[in-house]
């Protein structure tokens, strides 16, 4: 069964490449699925509503498009993550600095983790306390 997705990439909007789907993975990378699951879980817990989420993500995408990004959908999950972070900050559940610090910790933990082992936050050599 031939699929026109390849052609779609070039023809859907002239001059704007669109990531192909090819009936394949709906996530380009695992982190996208994780970010997706976080939002689903938080909605399930009632931390925010579907409508709040739609507004947050819509605003993020609109801003990115206005700035010349997000035109081909390829950075969709980056916007998704920003929307999540901003919504959590707005709700007082996270701070930008807190997320920054934790992300740096994860990055260091990854570098300090030997091949073949799963990356654990405890592997960060600079990690002293749990975040709050």
């Amino acid at each position, binding site marked *: *069964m031939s699929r026109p997705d390849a052609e779609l990439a070039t023809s859907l909007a002239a001059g704007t490449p669109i990531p192909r789907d090819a009936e394949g993975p709906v996530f380009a990378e695992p982190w996208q699925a994780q970010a997706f699951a976080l939002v689903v879980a*938080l909605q399930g817990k009632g931390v925010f509503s579907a409508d709040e989420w739609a507004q947050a993500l819509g605003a993020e995408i609109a801003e990115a498009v206005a700035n010349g990004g997000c035109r081909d959908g390829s950075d969709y999950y980056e916007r998704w993550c920003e929307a999540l972070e901003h919504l959590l900050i707005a709700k007082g559940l996270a701070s930008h600095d807190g997320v920054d610090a934790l992300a740096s910790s*994860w990055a260091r933990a990854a570098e300090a983790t030997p091949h073949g082992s799963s990356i654990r936050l405890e592997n960060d050599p600079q990690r002293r306390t749990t975040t709050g």
Partner: protein
Amino acid sequence: MSGHHDHDHDNHLSPIEARVKALETLLVEKGYVDPAALDAIVDTYETKIGPRNGARVVAKAWTDPEFAARLKADGTAAVAELGYGGRGGEHIVAAFNTAEEHNLICCTLCSCYPWPVLGLPPVWYKSPPYRAKAVLDPRGVLADFGVTLPEGQTIRVWDSTAETRFIVIPMRPAGTEGWSEEQLAGIVTRDSMIGTGLPSVESRR
């Protein structure tokens, strides 16, 4: 999602990967999410749910007129009869294609999508050009997908919202008389339930 990564990239996280990990850690520590629940969600949407659920809905509507009537009247309840529902599918409206009207779904705000029946949205669905073009030039979108509708069949575009998601119920193709529900479900593609494709007997696997 874990336990089978053993390549070089394993000990390096990209900034966005680290950021997602950070958000996850933060939320797990605060007790808002359970890591096992996250894995279950990923698994559900990635593999278990997928467009096959939607295909079952369509096949049942094709073979059971009473179910079709219920689906038309209350999509959410009819879909729940088959055990599908939950996040992202609270209000599902089934848009039935007819000889006079073809339905196409999109979302111009973000990318609302009936996850429980169609799985995760394809990449192109989430792209601003698709959303923009679906509203302005739906026939052009169909042409991009290689679909040409008969003269006179109009296109109705359904713009999903956070509250209401749509699933297109395509017309049952000719040449499928006597097919079982399972056989029929096999020719219902995801795209045919978005409206960017049509089921065909040739696509039978």
